[in-house]
Protein backbone atom coordinates (compact mmCIF):
# COMPACT_ATOMS: atom_id res chain seq x y z
CA UNK A 1 0.00 0.00 0.00
CA UNK A 2 1.49 3.30 -1.06
CA UNK A 3 1.55 6.13 1.43
CA UNK A 4 0.10 9.36 0.21
CA UNK A 5 2.31 12.05 1.73
CA UNK A 6 0.85 15.02 -0.12
CA UNK A 7 -2.87 14.88 0.38
CA UNK A 8 -4.70 17.12 -2.10
CA UNK A 9 -6.07 20.39 -0.75
CA UNK A 10 -9.81 19.75 -0.44
CA UNK A 11 -10.70 23.39 0.24
CA UNK A 12 -8.94 24.42 -2.98
CA UNK A 13 -10.81 21.76 -4.97
CA UNK A 14 -14.16 22.83 -3.52
CA UNK A 15 -13.43 26.42 -4.57
CA UNK A 16 -12.84 25.12 -8.11
CA UNK A 17 -9.07 24.52 -8.39
CA UNK A 18 -8.78 22.02 -11.26
CA UNK A 19 -5.01 21.69 -10.83
CA UNK A 20 -5.49 20.43 -7.28
CA UNK A 21 -8.28 18.12 -8.43
CA UNK A 22 -6.03 16.60 -11.08
CA UNK A 23 -3.59 15.70 -8.25
CA UNK A 24 -6.41 13.88 -6.46
CA UNK A 25 -7.32 12.04 -9.68
CA UNK A 26 -3.68 11.01 -10.19
CA UNK A 27 -3.47 9.72 -6.62
CA UNK A 28 -6.56 7.54 -6.74
CA UNK A 29 -7.16 6.74 -10.42
CA UNK A 30 -5.42 3.35 -10.41
CA UNK A 31 -7.39 1.88 -7.53
CA UNK A 32 -10.69 3.42 -8.68
CA UNK A 33 -10.10 2.05 -12.18
CA UNK A 34 -9.08 -1.38 -10.81
CA UNK A 35 -12.27 -1.60 -8.71
CA UNK A 36 -14.34 -0.61 -11.78
CA UNK A 37 -12.56 -3.06 -14.06
CA UNK A 38 -12.85 -5.98 -11.65
CA UNK A 39 -16.52 -5.25 -11.02
CA UNK A 40 -17.61 -4.50 -14.59
CA UNK A 41 -15.18 -6.84 -16.43
CA UNK A 42 -14.84 -4.47 -19.37
CA UNK A 43 -12.03 -1.96 -19.91
CA UNK A 44 -14.01 0.73 -21.80
CA UNK A 45 -16.93 0.59 -19.42
CA UNK A 46 -14.59 0.62 -16.42
CA UNK A 47 -12.85 3.74 -17.72
CA UNK A 48 -16.19 5.49 -18.24
CA UNK A 49 -17.44 4.55 -14.77
CA UNK A 50 -14.13 5.57 -13.18
CA UNK A 51 -14.50 8.99 -14.83
CA UNK A 52 -18.10 9.26 -13.64
CA UNK A 53 -16.93 8.40 -10.12
CA UNK A 54 -14.43 11.27 -10.16
CA UNK A 55 -17.10 13.69 -11.42
CA UNK A 56 -19.32 12.59 -8.53
CA UNK A 57 -16.38 13.07 -6.17
CA UNK A 58 -15.83 16.59 -7.49
CA UNK A 59 -19.51 17.45 -7.14
CA UNK A 60 -19.91 16.13 -3.63
CA UNK A 61 -16.52 16.97 -2.14
CA UNK A 62 -18.06 19.93 -0.32
CA UNK A 63 -20.24 17.48 1.61
CA UNK A 64 -17.20 15.42 2.71
CA UNK A 65 -16.99 16.06 6.43
CA UNK A 66 -13.92 14.01 7.25
CA UNK A 67 -15.86 11.42 9.24
CA UNK A 68 -13.95 8.72 7.37
CA UNK A 69 -10.65 8.73 5.50
CA UNK A 70 -10.74 10.56 2.16
CA UNK A 71 -9.58 7.37 0.41
CA UNK A 72 -12.38 5.31 2.01
CA UNK A 73 -14.93 7.93 0.95
CA UNK A 74 -13.57 7.92 -2.62
CA UNK A 75 -13.69 4.11 -2.84
CA UNK A 76 -17.25 4.09 -1.51
CA UNK A 77 -18.31 6.45 -4.31
CA UNK A 78 -16.49 4.31 -6.89
CA UNK A 79 -18.03 1.09 -5.53
CA UNK A 80 -21.55 2.58 -5.50
CA UNK A 81 -21.15 4.00 -9.02
CA UNK A 82 -20.17 0.54 -10.28
CA UNK A 83 -23.12 -1.05 -8.47
CA UNK A 84 -25.45 1.54 -10.04
CA UNK A 85 -24.06 0.68 -13.49
CA UNK A 86 -24.53 -3.04 -12.87
CA UNK A 87 -28.12 -2.46 -11.71
CA UNK A 88 -28.86 -0.13 -14.62
CA UNK A 89 -27.83 -2.60 -17.27
CA UNK A 90 -28.97 -5.57 -15.19
CA UNK A 91 -25.70 -7.35 -15.77
CA UNK A 92 -26.15 -10.89 -14.70
CA UNK A 93 -23.40 -11.72 -12.29
CA UNK A 94 -22.95 -15.42 -11.95
CA UNK A 95 -22.76 -16.51 -8.38
CA UNK A 96 -20.04 -18.94 -7.72
CA UNK A 97 -21.01 -21.85 -5.55
CA UNK A 98 -18.79 -22.09 -2.51
CA UNK A 99 -17.32 -25.56 -2.73
CA UNK A 100 -15.09 -27.12 -0.20
CA UNK A 101 -11.43 -26.37 -0.72
CA UNK A 102 -9.49 -28.60 1.61
CA UNK A 103 -6.01 -28.14 3.05
CA UNK A 104 -4.69 -30.67 0.55
CA UNK A 105 -6.01 -28.61 -2.39
CA UNK A 106 -4.60 -25.41 -0.92
CA UNK A 107 -1.13 -26.93 -0.51
CA UNK A 108 -1.30 -28.34 -4.04
CA UNK A 109 -2.30 -24.98 -5.53
CA UNK A 110 0.39 -23.21 -3.53
CA UNK A 111 3.09 -25.54 -4.88
CA UNK A 112 1.92 -25.20 -8.47
CA UNK A 113 1.84 -21.40 -8.18
CA UNK A 114 5.34 -21.35 -6.68
CA UNK A 115 6.70 -23.09 -9.71
CA UNK A 116 4.99 -20.85 -12.24
CA UNK A 117 6.77 -18.05 -14.04
CA UNK A 118 6.03 -14.65 -12.52
CA UNK A 119 4.29 -13.29 -15.62
CA UNK A 120 2.24 -16.44 -16.11
CA UNK A 121 1.19 -16.45 -12.47
CA UNK A 122 0.16 -12.79 -12.55
CA UNK A 123 -1.94 -13.34 -15.69
CA UNK A 124 -3.65 -16.36 -14.17
CA UNK A 125 -4.52 -14.46 -10.99
CA UNK A 126 -5.96 -11.58 -12.99
CA UNK A 127 -8.02 -14.08 -14.96
CA UNK A 128 -9.34 -15.66 -11.76
CA UNK A 129 -10.28 -12.25 -10.29
CA UNK A 130 -12.10 -11.44 -13.54
CA UNK A 131 -14.26 -14.52 -12.99
CA UNK A 132 -15.31 -13.44 -9.51
CA UNK A 133 -18.74 -11.83 -8.99
CA UNK A 134 -18.56 -8.00 -8.89
CA UNK A 135 -18.98 -7.54 -5.14
CA UNK A 136 -16.42 -10.22 -4.23
CA UNK A 137 -13.89 -8.74 -6.65
CA UNK A 138 -14.41 -5.29 -5.08
CA UNK A 139 -14.08 -6.67 -1.54
CA UNK A 140 -10.76 -8.37 -2.29
CA UNK A 141 -9.39 -5.37 -4.19
CA UNK A 142 -10.35 -2.89 -1.47
CA UNK A 143 -9.04 -5.09 1.32
CA UNK A 144 -5.67 -5.91 -0.21
CA UNK A 145 -4.95 -2.43 -1.51
CA UNK A 146 -6.29 -0.41 1.39
CA UNK A 147 -3.95 -1.36 4.25
CA UNK A 148 -5.74 -4.69 4.74
CA UNK A 149 -8.02 -3.05 7.28
CA UNK A 150 -11.39 -4.60 7.98
CA UNK A 151 -12.61 -1.34 9.51
CA UNK A 152 -11.80 0.63 6.34
CA UNK A 153 -13.33 -2.10 4.18
CA UNK A 154 -16.52 -2.08 6.25
CA UNK A 155 -16.67 1.71 6.10
CA UNK A 156 -16.20 1.78 2.31
CA UNK A 157 -18.97 -0.79 1.80
CA UNK A 158 -21.19 0.62 4.56
CA UNK A 159 -21.27 -2.71 6.38
CA UNK A 160 -20.62 -3.77 9.94
CA UNK A 161 -17.10 -5.09 10.60
CA UNK A 162 -18.41 -8.61 11.31
CA UNK A 163 -20.40 -8.68 8.03
CA UNK A 164 -17.37 -7.39 6.13
CA UNK A 165 -15.28 -10.18 7.71
CA UNK A 166 -17.77 -12.87 6.62
CA UNK A 167 -17.99 -11.41 3.11
CA UNK A 168 -14.20 -11.27 2.85
CA UNK A 169 -13.93 -14.91 3.92
CA UNK A 170 -16.50 -15.94 1.29
CA UNK A 171 -14.75 -13.91 -1.40
CA UNK A 172 -11.45 -15.63 -0.56
CA UNK A 173 -13.13 -19.01 -0.77
CA UNK A 174 -14.73 -18.20 -4.13
CA UNK A 175 -11.36 -17.11 -5.50
CA UNK A 176 -9.80 -20.35 -4.28
CA UNK A 177 -12.56 -22.37 -6.01
CA UNK A 178 -11.95 -20.53 -9.29
CA UNK A 179 -8.21 -21.08 -8.92
CA UNK A 180 -8.78 -24.78 -8.25
CA UNK A 181 -10.79 -25.02 -11.49
CA UNK A 182 -8.12 -23.11 -13.34
CA UNK A 183 -5.36 -25.29 -12.00
CA UNK A 184 -6.75 -28.63 -13.19
CA UNK A 185 -4.88 -31.71 -11.84
CA UNK A 186 -2.96 -32.07 -15.07
CA UNK A 187 -1.75 -28.47 -14.78
CA UNK A 188 -0.69 -29.05 -11.21
CA UNK A 189 1.13 -32.26 -12.21
CA UNK A 190 2.98 -30.42 -14.98
CA UNK A 191 4.59 -28.21 -12.34
CA UNK A 192 5.54 -31.08 -10.08
Amino acid at each position, binding site marked *: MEHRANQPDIAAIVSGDSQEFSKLVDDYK*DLVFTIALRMLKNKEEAEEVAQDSF*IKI*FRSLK*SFQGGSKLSTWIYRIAYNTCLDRIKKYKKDQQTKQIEEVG*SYHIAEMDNALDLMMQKEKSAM*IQECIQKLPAIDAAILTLFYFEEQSLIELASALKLSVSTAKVKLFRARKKLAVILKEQLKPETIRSYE
Partner: protein
Amino acid sequence: MNEDKDLEKLINSLMEEAPLETPSDNFTDMVVARVEELKSSKLMFRPLITKKTFLLWAVILGGLTFYLASLDSSFNANIGNYLSAISEANSWFSDKLPQFQLSRKIIYMTGAFVIMIYFQAMLLKRFFNRQVI
Protein backbone atom coordinates in the same frame (compact mmCIF):
# COMPACT_ATOMS: atom_id res chain seq x y z
CA MET B 1 -9.53 -23.57 11.47
CA ASN B 2 -6.12 -24.49 10.12
CA GLU B 3 -7.70 -24.76 6.70
CA ASP B 4 -9.00 -21.17 6.93
CA LYS B 5 -5.53 -19.93 7.86
CA ASP B 6 -4.02 -21.77 4.88
CA LEU B 7 -6.66 -20.29 2.60
CA GLU B 8 -5.96 -16.80 3.93
CA LYS B 9 -2.24 -17.30 3.39
CA LEU B 10 -2.77 -18.51 -0.17
CA ILE B 11 -5.07 -15.61 -1.10
CA ASN B 12 -2.73 -13.11 0.58
CA SER B 13 0.14 -14.30 -1.59
CA LEU B 14 -2.13 -14.37 -4.67
CA MET B 15 -3.35 -10.83 -4.22
CA GLU B 16 0.20 -9.60 -3.83
CA GLU B 17 0.82 -10.89 -7.33
CA ALA B 18 -2.20 -9.05 -8.75
CA PRO B 19 -1.04 -5.51 -9.47
CA LEU B 20 -3.34 -2.52 -9.86
CA GLU B 21 -4.63 -1.80 -13.34
CA THR B 22 -3.86 1.52 -14.99
CA PRO B 23 -6.37 3.54 -17.02
CA SER B 24 -5.46 5.20 -20.32
CA ASP B 25 -2.68 7.83 -20.35
CA ASN B 26 -5.03 10.78 -20.83
CA PHE B 27 -7.44 9.69 -18.10
CA THR B 28 -6.69 12.61 -15.76
CA ASP B 29 -6.93 15.14 -18.62
CA MET B 30 -10.29 13.73 -19.65
CA VAL B 31 -11.67 13.94 -16.11
CA VAL B 32 -10.37 17.51 -15.68
CA ALA B 33 -11.89 18.49 -19.07
CA ARG B 34 -15.26 17.14 -17.91
CA VAL B 35 -14.94 19.04 -14.65
CA GLU B 36 -14.14 22.26 -16.55
CA GLU B 37 -17.20 21.67 -18.72
CA LEU B 38 -19.28 21.20 -15.60
CA LYS B 39 -17.98 24.43 -14.10
CA SER B 40 -18.68 26.48 -17.22
CA SER B 41 -22.16 24.99 -17.62
CA LYS B 42 -22.94 26.17 -14.09
CA LEU B 43 -22.11 29.76 -15.04
CA MET B 44 -24.09 29.78 -18.26
CA PHE B 45 -27.61 30.31 -16.93
CA ARG B 46 -30.13 31.11 -19.62
CA PRO B 47 -33.74 31.69 -18.59
CA LEU B 48 -36.44 30.05 -20.69
CA ILE B 49 -38.12 33.41 -21.34
CA THR B 50 -35.75 36.27 -22.12
CA LYS B 51 -36.27 39.67 -20.51
CA LYS B 52 -37.24 41.19 -23.87
CA THR B 53 -39.95 38.59 -24.54
CA PHE B 54 -41.18 38.88 -20.97
CA LEU B 55 -41.55 42.69 -21.23
CA LEU B 56 -43.22 42.40 -24.63
CA TRP B 57 -45.82 39.98 -23.24
CA ALA B 58 -46.40 42.23 -20.22
CA VAL B 59 -47.04 45.25 -22.48
CA ILE B 60 -49.36 43.23 -24.77
CA LEU B 61 -51.36 41.77 -21.87
CA GLY B 62 -51.56 45.14 -20.06
CA GLY B 63 -52.67 46.93 -23.21
CA LEU B 64 -55.25 44.28 -24.01
CA THR B 65 -56.70 44.45 -20.49
CA PHE B 66 -57.08 48.22 -20.64
CA TYR B 67 -58.50 48.09 -24.16
CA LEU B 68 -61.14 45.51 -23.15
CA ALA B 69 -61.94 47.43 -19.97
CA SER B 70 -62.37 50.70 -21.90
CA LEU B 71 -64.92 48.99 -24.16
CA ASP B 72 -67.12 48.54 -21.09
CA SER B 73 -68.95 51.89 -20.56
CA SER B 74 -69.44 51.27 -16.84
CA PHE B 75 -65.67 50.90 -16.35
CA ASN B 76 -64.98 54.66 -16.38
CA ALA B 77 -67.83 55.29 -14.00
CA ASN B 78 -66.75 52.52 -11.66
CA ILE B 79 -63.04 53.32 -11.64
CA GLY B 80 -63.58 56.01 -8.99
CA ASN B 81 -65.42 53.49 -6.82
CA TYR B 82 -62.59 50.98 -7.19
CA LEU B 83 -60.02 53.56 -6.16
CA SER B 84 -61.97 54.60 -3.09
CA ALA B 85 -62.48 50.91 -2.19
CA ILE B 86 -58.71 50.39 -2.34
CA SER B 87 -58.04 53.39 -0.09
CA GLU B 88 -60.66 52.15 2.37
CA ALA B 89 -59.12 48.69 2.45
CA ASN B 90 -56.59 49.83 5.04
CA SER B 91 -59.30 50.84 7.51
CA TRP B 92 -61.25 47.66 6.66
CA PHE B 93 -58.28 45.53 7.75
CA SER B 94 -57.78 47.48 10.96
CA ASP B 95 -61.50 47.04 11.74
CA LYS B 96 -61.92 43.42 10.80
CA LEU B 97 -58.59 41.86 11.78
CA PRO B 98 -59.09 42.02 15.57
CA GLN B 99 -62.46 40.27 15.09
CA PHE B 100 -60.82 37.47 13.13
CA GLN B 101 -60.41 34.44 15.35
CA LEU B 102 -59.19 30.92 14.66
CA SER B 103 -60.24 27.89 16.64
CA ARG B 104 -57.56 26.15 18.70
CA LYS B 105 -57.95 23.02 16.57
CA ILE B 106 -57.02 24.93 13.41
CA ILE B 107 -54.04 26.58 15.13
CA TYR B 108 -52.74 23.19 16.35
CA MET B 109 -53.38 21.59 12.97
CA THR B 110 -51.54 24.36 11.12
CA GLY B 111 -48.65 24.12 13.59
CA ALA B 112 -48.42 20.34 13.19
CA PHE B 113 -48.62 20.69 9.41
CA VAL B 114 -45.75 23.20 9.34
CA ILE B 115 -43.60 20.98 11.60
CA MET B 116 -44.36 17.95 9.38
CA ILE B 117 -43.35 19.84 6.22
CA TYR B 118 -40.08 20.98 7.82
CA PHE B 119 -39.34 17.49 9.07
CA GLN B 120 -40.01 15.91 5.68
CA ALA B 121 -37.89 18.53 3.92
CA MET B 122 -35.05 17.74 6.32
CA LEU B 123 -35.38 13.98 5.73
CA LEU B 124 -35.59 14.40 1.96
CA LYS B 125 -32.51 16.64 1.92
CA ARG B 126 -30.58 14.05 3.90
CA PHE B 127 -31.80 11.26 1.60
CA PHE B 128 -30.76 13.06 -1.59
CA ASN B 129 -27.40 14.08 -0.12
CA ARG B 130 -26.67 10.47 0.77
CA GLN B 131 -27.77 9.27 -2.64
CA VAL B 132 -24.96 11.25 -4.27
CA ILE B 133 -22.45 9.23 -2.26
